[in-house]
């Protein structure tokens, strides 16, 4: 494994206005090397999704530090963090979160175009990635015309098409049946390995374990 592309150190987080529940993260630390696939496993409410959000720069920690591809997120403003996510980070969401008004191909192209690729290059890259995930034939369909498993494959294509340094995946299988879930996980991990991308998956799904390099238990806002 190479140098860490994700490094969270002593992370603390409390949701605004949430006094009774206390800190969601309580000094959580995690390092993920380039190309490494890590599963954050824990019960609901353990803090794994919050940890994912903080590591991805979506939430700013109340304490501790995060370095993404060697860049300290604490030194970046909101816009700079967004630009870093755009070029270096891919996301796979539990509910897929495809843009309903765009076709599958356009969902992938959107991020590539925003990252600076020409329309032609974005289209070629999007089609290649969708084909690699076995969904090239349905590239012109809208999300509502795809099954859950197919939508998740489009989501994975959107995350990986830009060749990110790291992909954060939040419960990528929980909206899928077992066969689709296993298939999606295999495709995500397989393509990420092909591209050399690190993957951090937050899930309580035991079936993911065989696909990852390391399992980190998350409990009470800390990494085990």
């Amino acid at each position, binding site marked *: 494994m190479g140098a860490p592309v994700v490094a969270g150190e002593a992370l603390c987080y409390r949701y605004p206005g949430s006094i009774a529940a206390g800190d969601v993260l309580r000094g959580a630390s995690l390092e993920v090397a380039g190309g490494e696939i890590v599963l954050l496993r824990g019960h609901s409410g353990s803090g794994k*999704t919050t940890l*994912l*959000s903080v590591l*991805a720069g*979506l*939430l700013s920690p109340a304490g501790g530090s995060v370095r993404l591809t060697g860049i300290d997120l604490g030194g970046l403003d909101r*816009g700079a963090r*967004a*630009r*870093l*996510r*755009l*070029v270096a*980070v891919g*996301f796979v*969401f*539990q*509910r897929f*979160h495809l*843009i*309903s*008004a*765009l076709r599958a191909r*356009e969902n992938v192209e*959107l*991020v590539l175009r*925003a*990252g600076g690729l020409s329309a032609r290059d974005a289209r070629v890259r999007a089609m290649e990635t969708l084909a690699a995930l076995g969904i090239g034939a349905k590239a012109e369909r809208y999300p509502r015309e795809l099954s859950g498993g197919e939508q998740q494959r489009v989501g994975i294509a*959107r995350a990986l098409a830009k060749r990110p340094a790291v992909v954060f995946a*939040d*419960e990528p299988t*929980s909206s899928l049946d077992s066969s689709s879930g296993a298939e999606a996980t295999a495709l995500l991990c397989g393509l990420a390995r092909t591209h050399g991308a690190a993957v951090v998956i937050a899930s309580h799904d035991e079936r993911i374990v065989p696909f990852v390099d390391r399992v980190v238990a998350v409990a009470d806002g800390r990494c085990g």
Partner: protein
Amino acid sequence: MLALRYVVEDVPRLVASLAGIAFAVALVLVQTGIYAGFVRSTTLLVDNSDADIWVASRAMSYLEITLPVPYAWVGRIAAIDGVQHAEPLVLRSAIWQSPDGTLDYIRVIGFEPAGSSLRLGVSPDALAAMRRGDVATDAAQLSSLHAGGIGARGTIRGMPARVALLTRASQPIVSPTFLYTTLDSAVAWTPISLNEIMDGQHGPGTPINYVLVRLHSPQSASAVRAAIERALPEARAFPRAEMAAITRTFWVERTKIGFLLLLGASLGVFVGGIVVAQILYASVNEHLREYGTLKALGIGDRSLYAAIALQAVTIAVLGYVPGLAIGVAIAFAAAAGRGTPIEITVPGALLAFAVALLTCVAAAFFAVQRAVRVDPALAFGA
């Protein structure tokens, strides 16, 4: 790409927003058209004349309010170097009574039809054929006179009058019905001196209101103007454009019509803006999680602003076209049905387009706040 898809994905909502903008555009067009038509109509008599200079009393306020001047001015002005032709014009008030007894307040404009500087949208020969008792009036005023058309009769001060000619574009919106007639008819119908009452026709003692002057060369206007005012210290000589400007300014300031129409147009723009803002806001709300996803993926606020502004501009452009069509249709209907000039001008149309754009962009600015404030971490929620 995404912005345009959001615009067209919900057709009923698109139609509602287009209707809002079309309504605002049509209202702006009609209001500015009424204003332009009103302003232009106030100076039709001046604009539709070949007179290079209008000579009046120094006390003149505007075309319809002035003091009489001696008829003798016509000859004295005609003798000034550079003057090709000088003719008298009287402008007086009277009552028209139609055969069914209906009364209408009128302005009697007396002039010498043969070789006159007034054009009135009819041929010089037709004008020259006018005889004592004949009147020419704008076709749109026939209903006010309870007259069916050419040949219709009425009385003025108990004397017969006959509609002999129909003019075009010769009637100010706010003035009583203009009846153009021979100088003798005007004097007979509206005598203001003992001589006029006794003689029933014009003469050297007839008070007139204007002397219309045609020049040999329009370039000599300022020199002739100065010569007239030197020769007749009680006179003011106005080049045609200045005479029109004085009259226009009087009506605009006196009636505050510009303010009233602006008020009406503003209400239309406000309502249209609220409709578009509400619809854009609802659209943003509906796609809030998608905006959150876009922010999580790293799409910047600037791109979100651009996307929503593009939606607004698209609505503005698409709404402008039917708005323009509605405005033009209303203008045609008003002109055809009531003779009301609503002038849809290129500047008015451009103004309406600018208003549509600004309204939509302002509405978008209101809606976009919701999108840029969405927490990107929302995307990680279930």
